[in-house]
Structures are given as C-alpha cells and as structure tokens.
C-alpha cells in the first residue's frame, strides 16, 4: 500500500502546477472484464484526447489519468443547467502481477479508453490432463 502512494505522489510532482482556474478531478466509470488470456478495461473519458491520457502499470497497479481542458470559460458562461463539471479523470486499480506488461495496449475512441492487459503465461488457465492407471 505504501508503494502505491509513493507512485501517485511522484507522478503528480512531474506535472506542471501553474493553473489559473481551479481544476477538478473526477472518478471515471470503468468496466472490467476477463477472458482466458486477457484482462480488459473500458473507461469512459469523454472530452479527452489520446495524447493527454496517461496509462501506467507498475508493481501490479494500473493507473489512468486524463487531463481535460474546460470546453467553455466557466467563469463567464451563463449556465441555464449544469449537471456535470468538466475536469481531469483519475482512476487506479490493483490488477496484480500476472500481466505481461510489455504487451499492454490502450486505444481511445469516441470518448472511451480501452486497455488490454494480456496475462502472463504463468497465470493463464491451463487444462491439466489427468492420467489414470
């Protein structure tokens, strides 16, 4: 647990901090499903750009951070109805060590980030043949 906190702190330290408007960070909704050879995450990140999304896998933790610029000037816009704010997204998961980190793929389309985490050979389900006498 301590290790996870360290990772988060160091990644934040490398980001530029100078901001004119306070930037909010939101929790992105996620679907996670598993098939025999892969773990897949689907993350809703509307309004982000592929180059502003950071996906990191380190020591069994997958962390996703997307920087999203406000789409309107929030100080001067006259909102008639405001149900959501526009801001950064953040999410981390403990996915364990059984992932083949060199083959992780992520793509972003239509506001959804898909992260494919192939399982390492050692953890794939294996059918064991039973020999009888």
């Amino acid at each position, binding site marked *: 647990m301590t290790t996870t906190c360290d990772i988060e702190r160091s990644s934040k330290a490398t980001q530029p901090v100078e901001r004119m408007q306070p930037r909010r960070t939101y929790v992105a909704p996620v*679907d996670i499903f*598993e*098939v025999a050879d892969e773990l897949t995450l*689907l993350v809703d*990140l509307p309004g982000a750009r592929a180059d502003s999304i950071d996906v990191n896998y380190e020591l069994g933790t997958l962390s996703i951070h997307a920087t999203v610029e406000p789409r309107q000037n929030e100080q001067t816009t*006259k909102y*008639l*109805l405001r149900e959501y704010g526009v801001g950064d997204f953040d999410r981390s998961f403990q996915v364990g060590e059984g992932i083949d980190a060199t083959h992780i793929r992520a793509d972003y389309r239509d506001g959804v980030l898909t992260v494919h985490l192939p399982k390492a050979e050692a953890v794939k389900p294996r059918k064991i043949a039973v020999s009888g006498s």
Partner: protein
Amino acid sequence: MLANRFFPLTTYEDLRGELDRVFDAFGRGGRGLAFPNMRSMPAVNVWDDEGHIFIEAEVPGMKMEDLGVEVLGREVRLTGSRTTEHEHEEGINFHRRERAHSTFTRSLALDTDVEADKVKAVLKDGVLTITLPKAETAKARRIEVKGA
C-alpha cells in the same frame, strides 16, 4: 439579455423533478464518488449567449448513428442507445460494471423559441454539442434612447 436574468425555474420544473430523484438516489449529484444513473438520462449542461442556446451531453461510446436529436417547438429530445459490447461472449467474466449500457430518452424544455431547421449537432470524443439558434423574435434588442 439582462445580465442578472434568473434561471426560470418554473419552465424547467419537470427537469428539476428528475434531477431531485437522481440526487436522492445517490446522495450527491454529478460525479465524484457517485455515478449518475444513466438509465434515464445522460447528464447535460445548458448555456446560452446572445444568439444561441447550447446543450452539451457526455455520451462516451456512442456514434452519431446511435443518437437522435429532435426539436419540436420549445422541446429538445435526445435519444440514444449504446449496445453492450461483449455482453454475450462465451467465457467472459465481468469484474466490474459501472458504465451505462442502455437506451435513453431525455427531453429538455427551453424557455425561448429557436429556429428548428438551423439546429446543429456535433459529436466528438463522446461529447455531443447541440447549437440552437434563437428565433429572431427571441433575441434581445437594444432600444436606442433618444433625447427630447
């Protein structure tokens, strides 16, 4: 437009009722630790300027053909459906399901007449932005004050 125009709550009464129900169900509206229930509506932001009303909705995972935007008088109706990917695949195990997976219909009642045939809708990266030009009669007009 008067700088201190107040939000006409009576016109949006239906909407407030819906919003109150969402807030009650999750303790807190909007994002943060509670996810708005997308079953009955995507969250929308609405704002205006001199000549237009803007409606923005976050609809990640939707393509233009999954969405419908209709303008009838002062009512704007948003419809959409997102089919669940991977729902019926064999040997698939879901660990977590937080994203919305269903159809929605949402109606918004505007307080201004708009030009229905000039409405534009743009979808980019899961954000739908609808621009509705206000009808000429609805735009504020500066009246010149002439001295005697």
